[in-house]
């Protein structure tokens, strides 16, 4: 997020970030998946993932990160909103109300009996929406600098 010419000596920050980003990303995914029974969920998971990306942008400059992660976060936000809205429509096909969620237990190989639920789709939409919006806002404000 800084200009190339005013580069400071931030070797420590960069080294730590390279590792920390993966820890935060893993933690974010964990939060997202554990949200059904334990603390976590789409919103927190999304925010945590977003903060990992933001850490990257703070540590390295915009151009470097954009080269490494060539994702348009506006599209991520739009896809998230679309996903969470459309996931509600699925219920209509089964005669249920808009946004009704359902769940069932399946016997999956390796995992044993596992609960699968449609709320995951909805929550992924929320998470993507949060990541997209937060990163878009931060990138744009910093690009304006």
């Amino acid at each position, binding site marked *: 997020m800084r200009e190339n010419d005013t580069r400071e000596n931030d070797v420590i920050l960069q080294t730590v970030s390279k590792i920390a980003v993966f820890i935060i990303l893993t933690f974010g995914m964990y939060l997202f998946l554990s949200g059904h029974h334990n*603390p976590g969920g789409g919103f927190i998971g999304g925010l945590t993932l977003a903060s990992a990306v933001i850490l990257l942008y703070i540590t390295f400059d915009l151009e470097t990160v954009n080269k490494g992660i060539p994702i348009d976060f506006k599209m991520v936000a739009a896809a998230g909103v679309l996903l969470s809205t459309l996931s509600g429509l699925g219920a209509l096909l089964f005669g249920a109300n808009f946004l009704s*969620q359902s769940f069932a237990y399946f016997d999956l190989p390796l995992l044993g009996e596992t609960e699968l639920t449609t709320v995951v789709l909805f929550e992924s939409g929320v998470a993507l929406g949060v990541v997209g919006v937060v990163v878009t806002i931060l990138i744009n404000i910093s690009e304006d600098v």
Partner: protein
Amino acid sequence: MSFLHLLIVFPIFAVAIIPIIAKAVPRLHLGWAILAVPIFLFISFITFVPQISANETIAAAISWIPALDLHFAVYLDGLSLIFALLITGVGSLVVFYSIYYLSKERESLPHFYSYLMLFMGAMLGVVLTDNLMVLYLFWELTSVSSFLLIAFWYRRRKSQYGAQKSFLITVGGGIAMLMGFIMLQVMSGTTSIQEIISMRNSIQDHELFIPALVLILLGAFTKSAQFPFHIWLPDAMEAPTPVSAYLHSATMVKAGLFLVARFTPVFGGEATWFWLVSGVGIFTMFWGALFAMKQKDLKALLAYSTISQLGLIMSLFGLGSAALNGGADTDSVVYTTAIFVGLFHLVNHSTFKGALFMIVGIIDHGVGTRDIRKLGGLITLMPITFTLAVISSFSMAGMPPFNGFLSKEMFFTATLTATELSIFNMDTLGVVFPGLALIGSIFTFTYSTILVFRTFTGNYQREKLEKEPHEASIGLLISPIILCSLVVLLFFFPNQLSRFLLAPAMNGILPSYAGAEDFIPHIYAWHGFNTELFMTLGVVAGGFLLFKKYNLWKEVYDLFPSRISLDNGYRQILSISESTSNRFTNFYMTGFLRHYLFYIYAFLITVVGGTLFITGSFVLNTANDAPIGIYEALLVIIMGSAAVSILFTKSRMTATLLNGVLGYCIAIFFVLFRAPDLALTQLVVETVTTVLFLLCFYHLPEWSKEDRNLKVRIPKIIISASTGALTVLIALSVQGNRLFESISSYFEESYELAGGRNIVNTILGDFRALDTMLEVVVLFIAGIGVYTLIKVKAQDGGDSDERK
């Protein structure tokens, strides 16, 4: 989800695949692919004809938001079927016509067909739904798609003006209609139109009955371009001609007529309804025809003629509603004929007016102008077009052997019968109707002859034409040929139409008459030498005279000075409301953030604090509180000192970090009170916000010692102190007041109900998923807002005045 539901949403889903087709097959004219949609729909609706003509109706519903009585309910009866066939039938012809009319190279076809399909779906929704609110939704959607289509050539100033005008007027009427619908719902307790019809007698004496009636009529009049709201239709002619043929003559402008017909069983028989519908209708018929003769542009002439014809049908619906006064009996069955004629003419009008618009499009396309002062003598150059123009114009003028003759004669009959009514003062005032009908019809004959003879006969002036005139290609001609053959066919076989479509529609509009004798009249082309025939002869003679002696009486129009015209009034209202709202907005939008915060908090303190104070809700009850632990006390001390220190910091950085201390302490509070989800959220949000703050520093001015005089500071101190105090008081009062049992025990069963053990998340994702969804949408809108504020700067030299 029934077949009917699928038919409604089919064109709207087609919009989604239009860009894919356009990308996949760039060499194909998109119209060919789209043509399948209306043809499929038309055939599907045809299959309903046997059922409907046996006087069955089809109903189905999907519940949408049952708590609000919102159901996507569909209802198909004769009336809806007539409209559905018109929408899809004329729609097919228009799409076919547009393939040859719109150039693939020059026009943005994906946009055009997307808007057109959107309109088709919306219009089908309007005529097929049984739920008031869903009807309103589709109603406004037709206004939106009409707006987009009028502004299709959006760089033209006149297109912008016409689109805005039509949108303001029709949506304004739509909102009035919504209010009427809400009143109906209040009166009847239901949003189903069919249920409201069956409750007619119990709601008739309600005090909201007349207001609801007037408001719903406002919606119908604005949409169907009735006087004085007709002014949007001529400006809407800036749309491409296929759009004018489709939306602004055959379908959308008839939505108002549909609404009137649909609600006739509810409001019909009421004097207000009778006089408003028939009076406005007949006057519109006269007014539209009067101004149609003056037009120099062929499309403008057709626009005014459409206004006039819509008024004619409207007045028939009004006259026919008298039959419902005081219940149905065998004597009043004769008045129902008016509604029958209205429906008949509605179909006829769609055929000949659709054809006429296409013909004008052909002339415009082939010659390069629509100005009748430049046209003339095209008869030898465009013989087929000329023939088609003769058929459709003379049908409009009410001449045999075309369908317009039948409905025009029956229109005279209906106005003459209406003078025999003994109610609504019709015995004295009733003579107005045949009188205006006769004058209007004479004018109609005149402008129909102007249309044909000024264009096709007279002097051929090559030098005034932009292109070398030539007969149109066969592709452009097929659609008007089909419509013109319908014009002739309906003259010879009108009773087939009546049996399969008009009769079921009549049973739907006037259910109390269903099965009565003479309820469905037999249509005759020849019924002896009676008043109607003499009226028609008078129309021909008078109309021809007016046409020949146009120069002698054209000064009549100088009686209407342009300074006080309705158009001018519309512009005045627009500019006055614009300048007033500008002045009002500038009065409080000072540009200082502190002023805005001042408004917001002052409002909060007055309204919330005031309410709580007046109702005596400030209760401090510490009996149920848990004892304060050592960690909590420590946290409070930390937070307090951080908050106070902010006031005395010298740099922004310090202030932000101290603010962050407050946020993190709240997170620790959440941990202490065992709310891990909230604590996690708070921690991450606090982190991201701090980063945002630091970024925004770049844009902020130097942190300077601001004006420290007391006049500025005292209000600030008062506002901030009372906002803080109010928040604390509310928090304490919430604990002190226990108005009802906590509902949290319900959510404790989250594992059984939603399969999740985390109550917070099951609430977010399942129990209250709609809230979460809308929050995500709001967040997204905020994100787009930030993006556009920063990225989308004003073009050409950075002028950021958005009111351009």
